[in-house]
Protein backbone atom coordinates (compact mmCIF):
# COMPACT_ATOMS: atom_id res chain seq x y z
CA UNK A 1 0.00 0.00 0.00
CA UNK A 2 2.72 2.45 1.03
CA UNK A 3 4.92 1.80 -2.00
CA UNK A 4 1.93 1.84 -4.30
CA UNK A 5 0.84 5.25 -2.99
CA UNK A 6 4.41 6.48 -3.30
CA UNK A 7 4.44 5.64 -7.02
CA UNK A 8 1.09 7.34 -7.52
CA UNK A 9 2.32 10.34 -5.57
CA UNK A 10 5.50 10.64 -7.58
CA UNK A 11 3.56 10.40 -10.85
CA UNK A 12 1.22 13.18 -9.77
CA UNK A 13 4.08 15.14 -8.25
CA UNK A 14 6.14 15.03 -11.43
CA UNK A 15 3.36 16.90 -13.25
CA UNK A 16 3.28 19.45 -10.41
CA UNK A 17 7.03 19.83 -10.81
CA UNK A 18 6.63 20.63 -14.48
CA UNK A 19 4.02 23.29 -13.75
CA UNK A 20 6.10 24.73 -10.90
CA UNK A 21 9.15 24.88 -13.17
CA UNK A 22 7.18 27.25 -15.38
CA UNK A 23 6.53 29.56 -12.42
CA UNK A 24 10.12 29.26 -11.26
CA UNK A 25 11.73 30.04 -14.61
CA UNK A 26 9.63 33.18 -15.00
CA UNK A 27 10.11 34.13 -11.35
CA UNK A 28 13.84 33.67 -11.68
CA UNK A 29 14.32 35.68 -14.85
CA UNK A 30 11.58 38.31 -14.65
CA UNK A 31 11.10 38.42 -10.88
CA UNK A 32 7.33 38.22 -11.23
CA UNK A 33 4.68 35.64 -10.48
CA UNK A 34 2.88 34.73 -13.67
CA UNK A 35 -0.67 34.24 -12.45
CA UNK A 36 -1.81 33.17 -15.94
CA UNK A 37 0.43 30.11 -15.96
CA UNK A 38 -2.37 27.84 -14.75
CA UNK A 39 -4.56 28.93 -17.66
CA UNK A 40 -1.74 28.36 -20.17
CA UNK A 41 -1.48 24.88 -18.69
CA UNK A 42 -5.23 24.39 -19.15
CA UNK A 43 -5.05 25.49 -22.80
CA UNK A 44 -2.22 23.01 -23.32
CA UNK A 45 -4.45 20.25 -21.96
CA UNK A 46 -7.26 21.24 -24.34
CA UNK A 47 -4.97 21.44 -27.35
CA UNK A 48 -3.67 17.95 -26.54
CA UNK A 49 -7.22 16.69 -26.12
CA UNK A 50 -8.35 18.15 -29.44
CA UNK A 51 -5.31 16.78 -31.28
CA UNK A 52 -5.94 13.29 -29.91
CA UNK A 53 -9.73 13.28 -30.26
CA UNK A 54 -10.33 15.17 -33.49
CA UNK A 55 -7.11 14.62 -35.39
CA UNK A 56 -6.26 11.17 -34.02
CA UNK A 57 -2.69 12.18 -33.34
CA UNK A 58 -0.20 10.10 -31.48
CA UNK A 59 -0.07 11.23 -27.84
CA UNK A 60 3.52 12.43 -28.20
CA UNK A 61 2.61 14.50 -31.24
CA UNK A 62 -0.26 15.90 -29.17
CA UNK A 63 2.19 16.85 -26.41
CA UNK A 64 4.40 18.58 -28.94
CA UNK A 65 1.39 20.43 -30.36
CA UNK A 66 0.28 21.44 -26.86
CA UNK A 67 3.78 22.68 -26.09
CA UNK A 68 3.90 24.78 -29.27
CA UNK A 69 0.48 26.35 -28.76
CA UNK A 70 1.21 27.06 -25.09
CA UNK A 71 4.57 28.57 -25.96
CA UNK A 72 2.88 30.87 -28.49
CA UNK A 73 0.33 31.79 -25.84
CA UNK A 74 3.19 32.56 -23.49
CA UNK A 75 4.85 34.83 -26.05
CA UNK A 76 1.54 36.60 -26.57
CA UNK A 77 1.16 37.02 -22.82
CA UNK A 78 4.61 38.52 -22.57
CA UNK A 79 3.86 40.97 -25.39
CA UNK A 80 0.48 42.07 -24.12
CA UNK A 81 0.75 41.96 -20.35
CA UNK A 82 4.41 42.14 -19.38
CA UNK A 83 6.38 44.10 -21.95
CA UNK A 84 4.32 47.32 -21.69
CA UNK A 85 4.94 47.29 -17.93
CA UNK A 86 8.65 46.63 -18.27
CA UNK A 87 9.08 49.60 -20.54
CA UNK A 88 7.48 51.82 -17.94
CA UNK A 89 9.65 50.40 -15.19
CA UNK A 90 11.07 52.98 -12.85
CA UNK A 91 8.28 55.52 -13.20
CA UNK A 92 6.84 54.69 -9.82
CA UNK A 93 5.01 51.58 -10.96
CA UNK A 94 4.37 49.18 -8.14
CA UNK A 95 5.66 45.64 -8.06
CA UNK A 96 2.05 44.51 -8.00
CA UNK A 97 1.41 45.69 -11.56
CA UNK A 98 2.63 42.55 -13.40
CA UNK A 99 0.79 40.40 -10.87
CA UNK A 100 -2.49 42.21 -11.49
CA UNK A 101 -1.90 42.27 -15.23
CA UNK A 102 -1.36 38.50 -15.39
CA UNK A 103 -4.43 37.95 -13.21
CA UNK A 104 -6.29 39.81 -15.95
CA UNK A 105 -4.86 37.47 -18.57
CA UNK A 106 -5.75 34.47 -16.44
CA UNK A 107 -9.44 35.27 -16.08
CA UNK A 108 -9.58 36.31 -19.75
CA UNK A 109 -8.16 32.95 -20.85
CA UNK A 110 -10.39 31.04 -18.47
CA UNK A 111 -13.59 32.60 -19.72
CA UNK A 112 -12.34 32.26 -23.30
CA UNK A 113 -11.91 28.54 -22.67
CA UNK A 114 -15.42 28.38 -21.22
CA UNK A 115 -16.76 29.94 -24.43
CA UNK A 116 -14.61 27.82 -26.77
CA UNK A 117 -14.76 24.42 -25.11
CA UNK A 118 -17.84 24.63 -22.88
CA UNK A 119 -17.97 24.28 -19.10
CA UNK A 120 -18.29 20.50 -18.96
CA UNK A 121 -15.49 18.12 -18.06
CA UNK A 122 -14.20 16.26 -21.10
CA UNK A 123 -12.66 12.83 -20.93
CA UNK A 124 -9.32 12.03 -22.47
CA UNK A 125 -9.67 9.15 -24.94
CA UNK A 126 -7.84 6.03 -23.91
CA UNK A 127 -4.45 6.17 -25.58
CA UNK A 128 -2.62 3.41 -23.77
CA UNK A 129 -3.46 -0.20 -23.11
CA UNK A 130 -4.21 -1.15 -19.53
CA UNK A 131 -0.91 -2.96 -19.17
CA UNK A 132 0.23 -2.97 -15.57
CA UNK A 133 3.77 -3.83 -14.64
CA UNK A 134 4.56 -5.27 -11.24
CA UNK A 135 7.86 -4.32 -9.67
CA UNK A 136 8.26 -5.78 -6.21
CA UNK A 137 5.41 -4.43 -4.07
CA UNK A 138 4.42 -1.78 -6.64
CA UNK A 139 2.07 -1.88 -9.57
CA UNK A 140 2.66 0.73 -12.21
CA UNK A 141 0.52 1.28 -15.28
CA UNK A 142 1.80 2.12 -18.73
CA UNK A 143 0.29 5.62 -18.51
CA UNK A 144 2.20 6.25 -15.30
CA UNK A 145 5.42 5.05 -16.89
CA UNK A 146 4.91 7.45 -19.79
CA UNK A 147 4.10 10.37 -17.47
CA UNK A 148 7.11 9.72 -15.26
CA UNK A 149 9.41 9.27 -18.25
CA UNK A 150 8.25 12.44 -20.00
CA UNK A 151 8.30 14.58 -16.87
CA UNK A 152 11.66 13.41 -15.56
CA UNK A 153 13.14 13.39 -19.07
CA UNK A 154 12.11 17.03 -19.57
CA UNK A 155 13.48 18.04 -16.19
CA UNK A 156 16.82 16.36 -16.87
CA UNK A 157 17.10 17.98 -20.30
CA UNK A 158 16.24 21.35 -18.79
CA UNK A 159 18.84 20.99 -16.06
CA UNK A 160 21.50 20.01 -18.55
CA UNK A 161 20.49 22.75 -20.95
CA UNK A 162 20.64 25.42 -18.23
CA UNK A 163 23.94 24.18 -16.87
CA UNK A 164 25.91 23.42 -20.02
CA UNK A 165 24.72 25.38 -23.03
CA UNK A 166 25.52 28.95 -23.93
CA UNK A 167 21.87 30.01 -23.99
CA UNK A 168 21.36 28.32 -20.65
CA UNK A 169 24.21 30.32 -19.24
CA UNK A 170 22.78 33.52 -20.72
CA UNK A 171 19.44 32.69 -19.10
CA UNK A 172 21.04 32.20 -15.71
CA UNK A 173 22.97 35.44 -16.13
CA UNK A 174 19.74 37.29 -16.95
CA UNK A 175 18.15 35.76 -13.88
CA UNK A 176 20.94 37.05 -11.70
CA UNK A 177 20.77 40.57 -13.07
CA UNK A 178 19.03 41.64 -16.25
CA UNK A 179 21.04 44.85 -16.46
CA UNK A 180 24.46 43.29 -16.01
CA UNK A 181 23.65 40.52 -18.47
CA UNK A 182 22.55 43.17 -20.96
CA UNK A 183 25.81 45.09 -20.52
CA UNK A 184 27.78 41.90 -21.08
CA UNK A 185 26.15 41.42 -24.45
CA UNK A 186 23.24 39.12 -23.68
CA UNK A 187 20.13 39.91 -25.70
CA UNK A 188 17.97 40.03 -22.58
CA UNK A 189 14.72 40.69 -24.42
CA UNK A 190 15.24 37.53 -26.43
CA UNK A 191 16.11 35.59 -23.30
CA UNK A 192 12.96 36.84 -21.59
CA UNK A 193 10.77 35.78 -24.54
CA UNK A 194 12.59 32.44 -24.62
CA UNK A 195 12.06 31.92 -20.89
CA UNK A 196 8.36 32.72 -21.03
CA UNK A 197 7.80 30.45 -24.04
CA UNK A 198 9.86 27.65 -22.48
CA UNK A 199 7.95 27.93 -19.22
CA UNK A 200 4.61 27.98 -21.04
CA UNK A 201 5.60 25.05 -23.27
CA UNK A 202 6.44 22.98 -20.19
CA UNK A 203 3.09 24.00 -18.75
CA UNK A 204 1.32 22.83 -21.92
CA UNK A 205 2.97 19.42 -21.78
CA UNK A 206 2.08 19.19 -18.09
CA UNK A 207 -1.50 19.92 -19.13
CA UNK A 208 -1.59 16.87 -21.40
CA UNK A 209 0.05 14.72 -18.72
CA UNK A 210 -2.48 15.81 -16.09
CA UNK A 211 -5.26 15.17 -18.60
CA UNK A 212 -3.90 11.63 -18.94
CA UNK A 213 -3.55 11.17 -15.17
CA UNK A 214 -7.05 12.20 -14.22
CA UNK A 215 -8.62 11.39 -17.57
CA UNK A 216 -10.40 14.73 -17.39
CA UNK A 217 -9.93 18.18 -18.91
CA UNK A 218 -12.01 21.22 -17.91
CA UNK A 219 -11.67 25.01 -18.13
CA UNK A 220 -11.43 25.44 -14.34
CA UNK A 221 -8.47 23.07 -13.99
CA UNK A 222 -6.13 26.01 -14.46
CA UNK A 223 -6.97 27.73 -11.17
CA UNK A 224 -6.44 24.72 -8.92
CA UNK A 225 -3.27 23.68 -10.75
CA UNK A 226 -2.02 27.25 -10.69
CA UNK A 227 -2.48 27.32 -6.92
CA UNK A 228 -0.51 24.08 -6.56
CA UNK A 229 2.27 25.42 -8.73
CA UNK A 230 2.42 28.53 -6.52
CA UNK A 231 2.52 26.36 -3.41
CA UNK A 232 5.48 24.49 -4.88
CA UNK A 233 7.10 27.80 -5.78
CA UNK A 234 7.04 28.83 -2.11
CA UNK A 235 7.88 25.32 -0.90
CA UNK A 236 10.98 25.01 -3.03
CA UNK A 237 12.07 28.61 -2.66
CA UNK A 238 11.20 31.40 -5.10
CA UNK A 239 13.12 31.11 -8.35
CA UNK A 240 14.88 27.91 -7.33
CA UNK A 241 14.83 25.24 -10.03
CA UNK A 242 15.92 22.29 -7.89
CA UNK A 243 13.39 23.42 -5.31
CA UNK A 244 10.58 23.42 -7.87
CA UNK A 245 11.39 19.90 -9.08
CA UNK A 246 11.69 18.48 -5.59
CA UNK A 247 8.82 20.52 -4.12
CA UNK A 248 6.45 19.25 -6.80
CA UNK A 249 7.23 15.68 -5.90
CA UNK A 250 6.77 16.43 -2.19
CA UNK A 251 3.38 18.02 -2.81
CA UNK A 252 2.26 15.15 -5.06
CA UNK A 253 3.24 12.52 -2.51
CA UNK A 254 1.69 14.50 0.36
CA UNK A 255 -1.57 14.85 -1.54
CA UNK A 256 -1.81 11.19 -2.48
CA UNK A 257 -1.07 10.13 1.07
CA UNK A 258 -3.64 12.52 2.52
CA UNK A 259 -6.21 10.98 0.19
CA UNK A 260 -5.13 7.42 0.97
CA UNK A 261 -4.99 7.82 4.74
CA UNK A 262 -7.60 10.38 5.53
CA UNK A 263 -9.59 13.22 4.12
CA UNK A 264 -10.08 12.80 0.40
CA UNK A 265 -12.31 15.84 -0.04
CA UNK A 266 -9.63 18.08 1.43
CA UNK A 267 -6.88 17.14 -1.00
CA UNK A 268 -6.91 20.62 -2.48
CA UNK A 269 -6.25 22.02 0.98
CA UNK A 270 -2.93 20.19 1.32
CA UNK A 271 -1.15 22.66 -0.93
CA UNK A 272 -2.38 25.56 1.18
CA UNK A 273 -1.48 23.89 4.46
CA UNK A 274 2.02 23.48 3.06
CA UNK A 275 2.23 27.18 2.16
CA UNK A 276 1.34 28.26 5.68
CA UNK A 277 3.62 25.69 7.31
CA UNK A 278 6.60 26.60 5.17
CA UNK A 279 6.03 30.32 5.72
CA UNK A 280 6.13 29.73 9.46
CA UNK A 281 9.08 27.34 9.57
CA UNK A 282 11.34 28.10 6.64
CA UNK A 283 10.12 31.14 4.70
CA UNK A 284 12.95 31.01 2.17
CA UNK A 285 11.72 27.58 1.04
CA UNK A 286 13.31 24.16 1.29
CA UNK A 287 16.11 24.96 -1.13
CA UNK A 288 16.18 28.72 -0.91
CA UNK A 289 19.25 30.49 0.37
CA UNK A 290 18.75 33.11 3.06
CA UNK A 291 19.12 35.98 0.62
CA UNK A 292 16.78 34.26 -1.83
CA UNK A 293 19.12 34.44 -4.80
CA UNK A 294 21.01 31.19 -4.55
CA UNK A 295 20.49 27.84 -6.19
CA UNK A 296 19.88 28.95 -9.72
Amino acid at each position, binding site marked *: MFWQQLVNGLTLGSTYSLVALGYTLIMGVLDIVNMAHGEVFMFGAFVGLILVTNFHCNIFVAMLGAAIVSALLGILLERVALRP*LRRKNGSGISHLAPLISTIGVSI*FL*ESLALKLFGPQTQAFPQTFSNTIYTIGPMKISLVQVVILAVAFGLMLVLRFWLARTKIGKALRATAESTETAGILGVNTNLIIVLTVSLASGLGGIAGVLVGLTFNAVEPTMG*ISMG*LKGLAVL*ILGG*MGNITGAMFGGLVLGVAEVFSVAYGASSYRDAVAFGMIILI*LFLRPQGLFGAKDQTGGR
Partner: protein
Amino acid sequence: MDILLNPYYLQIGTFIMLNAILGVSIYLTLATGQLSLGNAGFMSIGAYTSALLTLKAGFSVLLAVPLAGFVAAAVSVVIGFPALRLKGLYLAIATLGFGEVVRVIFLNLKITNGALGLSGIPSMTILLGKTLSSLGLGSGIGGVTLQQLSSVLILFFLILIVALLVFACLRLSRCRAGRAFAAIKTDETAAEAMGINTTYYKLLAFLLGAFIAGVAGALSAHLTFYIGPVDFDYHRTVEILIFAVLGGSNLVWGPILGAFLLTLLPEILRAASDYRMMIYGAILVLMMAFRPQGLISEETLRFWKGKLGREEK
Protein backbone atom coordinates in the same frame (compact mmCIF):
# COMPACT_ATOMS: atom_id res chain seq x y z
CA MET B 1 -41.50 58.78 -6.98
CA ASP B 2 -42.41 55.30 -8.17
CA ILE B 3 -39.44 55.29 -10.53
CA LEU B 4 -37.11 56.14 -7.69
CA LEU B 5 -38.59 53.46 -5.48
CA ASN B 6 -38.51 50.80 -8.19
CA PRO B 7 -37.31 47.65 -6.36
CA TYR B 8 -34.90 46.90 -9.21
CA TYR B 9 -33.13 50.24 -8.81
CA LEU B 10 -33.11 49.88 -5.05
CA GLN B 11 -31.55 46.47 -5.45
CA ILE B 12 -28.80 47.83 -7.71
CA GLY B 13 -28.19 50.62 -5.23
CA THR B 14 -27.82 48.07 -2.46
CA PHE B 15 -25.33 46.06 -4.50
CA ILE B 16 -23.33 49.17 -5.33
CA MET B 17 -23.03 49.97 -1.64
CA LEU B 18 -22.06 46.39 -0.74
CA ASN B 19 -19.40 46.42 -3.45
CA ALA B 20 -18.19 49.81 -2.27
CA ILE B 21 -17.66 48.32 1.20
CA LEU B 22 -15.68 45.49 -0.39
CA GLY B 23 -13.72 48.05 -2.38
CA VAL B 24 -12.74 49.78 0.87
CA SER B 25 -11.66 46.42 2.28
CA ILE B 26 -9.16 45.81 -0.51
CA TYR B 27 -8.10 49.46 -0.49
CA LEU B 28 -6.97 49.19 3.12
CA THR B 29 -4.68 46.24 2.37
CA LEU B 30 -3.39 47.91 -0.78
CA ALA B 31 -2.66 51.05 1.25
CA THR B 32 0.43 49.26 2.56
CA GLY B 33 1.38 48.04 -0.91
CA GLN B 34 0.24 44.50 -0.17
CA LEU B 35 -2.17 42.57 -2.34
CA SER B 36 -4.69 40.33 -0.65
CA LEU B 37 -6.39 37.81 -2.90
CA GLY B 38 -8.40 36.35 -0.05
CA ASN B 39 -11.09 38.97 0.35
CA ALA B 40 -13.73 36.64 -1.07
CA GLY B 41 -12.59 34.09 1.49
CA PHE B 42 -13.02 36.55 4.36
CA MET B 43 -16.34 37.57 2.90
CA SER B 44 -17.50 33.97 2.95
CA ILE B 45 -16.28 33.50 6.52
CA GLY B 46 -18.29 36.56 7.51
CA ALA B 47 -21.34 35.43 5.57
CA TYR B 48 -21.35 31.88 6.93
CA THR B 49 -20.59 32.98 10.49
CA SER B 50 -23.41 35.47 10.55
CA ALA B 51 -25.83 33.12 8.79
CA LEU B 52 -25.07 30.24 11.15
CA LEU B 53 -25.21 32.45 14.26
CA THR B 54 -28.67 33.72 13.34
CA LEU B 55 -30.02 30.46 11.92
CA LYS B 56 -28.66 27.90 14.39
CA ALA B 57 -27.78 29.86 17.52
CA GLY B 58 -30.59 32.38 17.43
CA PHE B 59 -28.43 35.48 17.56
CA SER B 60 -29.95 38.77 16.46
CA VAL B 61 -28.75 40.08 13.10
CA LEU B 62 -27.41 43.27 14.64
CA LEU B 63 -25.12 41.28 16.91
CA ALA B 64 -24.17 38.60 14.38
CA VAL B 65 -22.89 40.99 11.69
CA PRO B 66 -20.11 42.62 13.74
CA LEU B 67 -19.25 39.26 15.29
CA ALA B 68 -18.79 37.87 11.77
CA GLY B 69 -16.34 40.68 11.07
CA PHE B 70 -14.34 39.81 14.19
CA VAL B 71 -14.19 36.14 13.24
CA ALA B 72 -12.87 37.05 9.77
CA ALA B 73 -10.30 39.39 11.33
CA ALA B 74 -9.16 36.67 13.75
CA VAL B 75 -8.65 34.24 10.89
CA SER B 76 -6.76 36.89 8.93
CA VAL B 77 -4.10 37.08 11.65
CA VAL B 78 -3.35 33.37 11.25
CA ILE B 79 -2.77 33.80 7.50
CA GLY B 80 -1.27 37.24 7.64
CA PHE B 81 1.30 36.80 10.35
CA PRO B 82 3.58 34.31 8.56
CA ALA B 83 2.99 35.85 5.13
CA LEU B 84 3.52 39.46 6.17
CA ARG B 85 6.83 38.92 7.93
CA LEU B 86 8.23 38.52 4.42
CA LYS B 87 8.53 41.10 1.71
CA GLY B 88 7.11 40.75 -1.74
CA LEU B 89 4.32 38.65 -3.06
CA TYR B 90 3.94 36.10 -0.29
CA LEU B 91 0.69 37.58 0.95
CA ALA B 92 -0.87 37.43 -2.51
CA ILE B 93 -0.01 33.75 -2.91
CA ALA B 94 -0.92 32.75 0.64
CA THR B 95 -4.26 34.54 0.49
CA LEU B 96 -5.05 33.10 -2.94
CA GLY B 97 -4.53 29.65 -1.46
CA PHE B 98 -6.55 30.64 1.58
CA GLY B 99 -9.53 31.69 -0.54
CA GLU B 100 -9.58 28.32 -2.29
CA VAL B 101 -9.26 26.40 0.97
CA VAL B 102 -12.10 28.28 2.62
CA ARG B 103 -14.26 27.40 -0.36
CA VAL B 104 -13.27 23.72 -0.14
CA ILE B 105 -13.99 23.66 3.60
CA PHE B 106 -17.43 25.25 3.27
CA LEU B 107 -18.12 22.86 0.40
CA ASN B 108 -17.42 19.84 2.59
CA LEU B 109 -18.69 20.81 6.05
CA LYS B 110 -22.04 19.49 7.15
CA ILE B 111 -23.06 22.58 9.09
CA THR B 112 -22.69 24.78 6.00
CA ASN B 113 -24.83 22.38 3.97
CA GLY B 114 -22.07 21.72 1.42
CA ALA B 115 -22.57 22.68 -2.19
CA LEU B 116 -26.26 23.44 -1.63
CA GLY B 117 -25.42 26.39 0.59
CA LEU B 118 -27.53 27.94 3.31
CA SER B 119 -30.95 29.33 2.59
CA GLY B 120 -33.64 30.99 4.67
CA ILE B 121 -31.14 33.35 6.28
CA PRO B 122 -33.02 36.05 8.23
CA SER B 123 -33.41 38.98 5.86
CA MET B 124 -32.70 42.48 7.11
CA THR B 125 -35.38 43.92 4.86
CA ILE B 126 -38.09 41.64 6.24
CA LEU B 127 -36.94 42.12 9.83
CA LEU B 128 -37.03 45.87 9.37
CA GLY B 129 -40.46 45.57 7.79
CA LYS B 130 -41.73 43.70 10.84
CA THR B 131 -40.30 46.28 13.18
CA LEU B 132 -41.89 49.08 11.16
CA SER B 133 -45.30 47.45 11.13
CA SER B 134 -45.13 46.89 14.87
CA LEU B 135 -44.58 50.65 15.09
CA GLY B 136 -47.88 51.11 13.30
CA LEU B 137 -46.49 51.73 9.82
CA GLY B 138 -47.84 48.43 8.47
CA SER B 139 -49.58 50.13 5.55
CA GLY B 140 -46.70 52.45 4.80
CA ILE B 141 -46.71 56.22 4.74
CA GLY B 142 -47.94 58.54 2.04
CA GLY B 143 -48.29 56.04 -0.81
CA VAL B 144 -44.99 54.36 -0.05
CA THR B 145 -45.55 50.71 0.73
CA LEU B 146 -43.96 49.01 3.71
CA GLN B 147 -41.61 46.97 1.51
CA GLN B 148 -40.38 50.04 -0.35
CA LEU B 149 -39.91 51.89 2.90
CA SER B 150 -37.78 49.16 4.45
CA SER B 151 -35.72 48.76 1.24
CA VAL B 152 -35.01 52.47 1.19
CA LEU B 153 -34.06 52.44 4.86
CA ILE B 154 -31.69 49.51 4.27
CA LEU B 155 -30.12 51.39 1.37
CA PHE B 156 -29.64 54.46 3.57
CA PHE B 157 -28.14 52.24 6.27
CA LEU B 158 -25.60 50.90 3.76
CA ILE B 159 -24.84 54.40 2.47
CA LEU B 160 -24.24 55.41 6.08
CA ILE B 161 -21.77 52.54 6.54
CA VAL B 162 -19.92 53.49 3.34
CA ALA B 163 -19.82 57.13 4.43
CA LEU B 164 -18.43 56.13 7.82
CA LEU B 165 -15.77 53.98 6.17
CA VAL B 166 -14.77 56.77 3.81
CA PHE B 167 -14.60 59.21 6.71
CA ALA B 168 -12.47 56.76 8.70
CA CYS B 169 -10.13 56.23 5.76
CA LEU B 170 -9.76 59.97 5.19
CA ARG B 171 -8.99 60.46 8.88
CA LEU B 172 -6.61 57.53 8.77
CA SER B 173 -4.36 59.20 6.23
CA ARG B 174 -3.71 61.95 8.76
CA CYS B 175 -2.89 59.79 11.76
CA ARG B 176 0.07 57.72 12.80
CA ALA B 177 -1.14 54.42 11.38
CA GLY B 178 -2.15 55.95 8.07
CA ARG B 179 1.20 57.66 7.64
CA ALA B 180 2.93 54.39 8.48
CA PHE B 181 0.83 52.66 5.79
CA ALA B 182 1.85 55.26 3.23
CA ALA B 183 5.51 54.99 4.19
CA ILE B 184 5.47 51.21 3.84
CA LYS B 185 3.73 51.48 0.48
CA THR B 186 6.32 53.90 -0.86
CA ASP B 187 9.39 52.04 0.34
CA GLU B 188 9.26 49.23 2.81
CA THR B 189 12.99 49.13 3.54
CA ALA B 190 13.13 52.87 4.13
CA ALA B 191 10.08 52.69 6.37
CA GLU B 192 11.71 49.97 8.41
CA ALA B 193 14.87 52.06 8.69
CA MET B 194 12.74 54.93 10.01
CA GLY B 195 11.69 52.72 12.90
CA ILE B 196 8.27 51.71 11.65
CA ASN B 197 7.27 48.21 12.70
CA THR B 198 6.37 47.13 9.17
CA THR B 199 4.98 43.71 10.08
CA TYR B 200 2.67 45.24 12.67
CA TYR B 201 1.25 47.87 10.34
CA LYS B 202 0.96 45.51 7.37
CA LEU B 203 -0.88 43.07 9.61
CA LEU B 204 -3.09 45.87 10.93
CA ALA B 205 -4.05 46.91 7.39
CA PHE B 206 -4.67 43.32 6.37
CA LEU B 207 -6.76 42.70 9.49
CA LEU B 208 -8.88 45.81 8.94
CA GLY B 209 -9.46 44.75 5.34
CA ALA B 210 -10.49 41.27 6.47
CA PHE B 211 -12.84 42.70 9.12
CA ILE B 212 -14.59 44.92 6.58
CA ALA B 213 -14.79 42.08 4.06
CA GLY B 214 -16.29 39.86 6.77
CA VAL B 215 -18.91 42.49 7.63
CA ALA B 216 -19.70 42.95 3.94
CA GLY B 217 -20.13 39.20 3.58
CA ALA B 218 -22.44 39.08 6.58
CA LEU B 219 -24.50 41.99 5.23
CA SER B 220 -24.77 40.33 1.83
CA ALA B 221 -25.95 37.11 3.51
CA HIS B 222 -28.73 39.01 5.28
CA LEU B 223 -29.70 40.84 2.11
CA THR B 224 -29.90 37.87 -0.25
CA PHE B 225 -31.25 35.15 2.14
CA TYR B 226 -29.06 32.56 0.41
CA ILE B 227 -25.32 31.88 0.36
CA GLY B 228 -23.35 29.06 -1.26
CA PRO B 229 -19.66 28.30 -1.72
CA VAL B 230 -19.83 29.36 -5.38
CA ASP B 231 -20.64 32.95 -4.39
CA PHE B 232 -17.18 33.42 -2.94
CA ASP B 233 -14.74 31.86 -5.39
CA TYR B 234 -11.67 33.23 -7.14
CA HIS B 235 -13.82 35.26 -9.54
CA ARG B 236 -15.32 37.17 -6.65
CA THR B 237 -11.84 38.08 -5.47
CA VAL B 238 -10.88 39.29 -8.93
CA GLU B 239 -14.10 41.30 -9.05
CA ILE B 240 -13.18 43.00 -5.76
CA LEU B 241 -9.63 43.59 -6.95
CA ILE B 242 -10.81 45.22 -10.15
CA PHE B 243 -12.81 47.85 -8.19
CA ALA B 244 -9.51 49.10 -6.81
CA VAL B 245 -7.60 48.69 -10.07
CA LEU B 246 -10.12 50.56 -12.21
CA GLY B 247 -10.97 53.27 -9.72
CA GLY B 248 -7.48 53.64 -8.32
CA SER B 249 -6.05 52.48 -5.04
CA ASN B 250 -4.23 55.61 -3.91
CA LEU B 251 -7.36 57.29 -2.58
CA VAL B 252 -10.38 55.76 -0.93
CA TRP B 253 -12.61 57.34 -3.60
CA GLY B 254 -11.02 55.12 -6.23
CA PRO B 255 -12.39 51.71 -5.20
CA ILE B 256 -15.78 53.31 -4.52
CA LEU B 257 -15.92 54.77 -8.02
CA GLY B 258 -14.75 51.40 -9.35
CA ALA B 259 -17.49 49.58 -7.46
CA PHE B 260 -20.07 52.06 -8.72
CA LEU B 261 -19.03 51.78 -12.38
CA LEU B 262 -18.53 48.03 -12.44
CA THR B 263 -21.81 47.27 -10.68
CA LEU B 264 -23.72 49.46 -13.10
CA LEU B 265 -21.92 48.26 -16.23
CA PRO B 266 -23.46 44.78 -16.50
CA GLU B 267 -26.89 46.25 -15.76
CA ILE B 268 -26.65 48.86 -18.50
CA LEU B 269 -24.94 46.62 -21.03
CA ARG B 270 -27.02 43.49 -20.69
CA ALA B 271 -25.42 41.99 -23.80
CA ALA B 272 -21.98 42.48 -22.33
CA SER B 273 -22.74 40.60 -19.13
CA ASP B 274 -22.09 37.30 -20.95
CA TYR B 275 -18.55 38.42 -21.56
CA ARG B 276 -18.15 40.05 -18.15
CA MET B 277 -15.13 38.07 -17.04
CA MET B 278 -13.37 38.62 -20.38
CA ILE B 279 -14.02 42.35 -20.12
CA TYR B 280 -12.72 42.33 -16.53
CA GLY B 281 -9.56 40.58 -17.67
CA ALA B 282 -9.04 43.08 -20.46
CA ILE B 283 -9.63 45.99 -18.06
CA LEU B 284 -6.98 44.66 -15.66
CA VAL B 285 -4.39 44.31 -18.43
CA LEU B 286 -5.20 47.66 -20.04
CA MET B 287 -5.25 49.59 -16.77
CA MET B 288 -1.88 48.20 -15.77
CA ALA B 289 -0.41 49.08 -19.17
CA PHE B 290 -1.85 52.56 -19.55
CA ARG B 291 -2.99 53.89 -16.20
CA PRO B 292 -1.65 51.80 -13.32
CA GLN B 293 -2.71 54.40 -10.75
CA GLY B 294 -6.39 53.96 -11.68
CA LEU B 295 -8.98 56.51 -12.77
CA ILE B 296 -8.66 58.64 -9.65
CA SER B 297 -5.29 59.60 -8.27
CA GLU B 298 -3.96 62.54 -6.30
CA GLU B 299 -3.20 64.36 -9.58
CA THR B 300 -6.76 63.94 -10.84
CA LEU B 301 -8.10 65.34 -7.62
CA ARG B 302 -5.72 68.30 -7.74
CA PHE B 303 -6.61 68.94 -11.40
CA TRP B 304 -10.33 69.10 -10.68
CA LYS B 305 -9.82 71.19 -7.58
CA GLY B 306 -7.90 73.64 -9.77
CA LYS B 307 -10.64 73.60 -12.39
CA LEU B 308 -13.29 74.30 -9.81
CA GLY B 309 -11.25 77.23 -8.59
CA ARG B 310 -10.47 75.89 -5.16
CA GLU B 311 -7.02 76.38 -3.77
CA GLU B 312 -5.03 73.36 -2.77
CA LYS B 313 -4.02 73.83 0.83
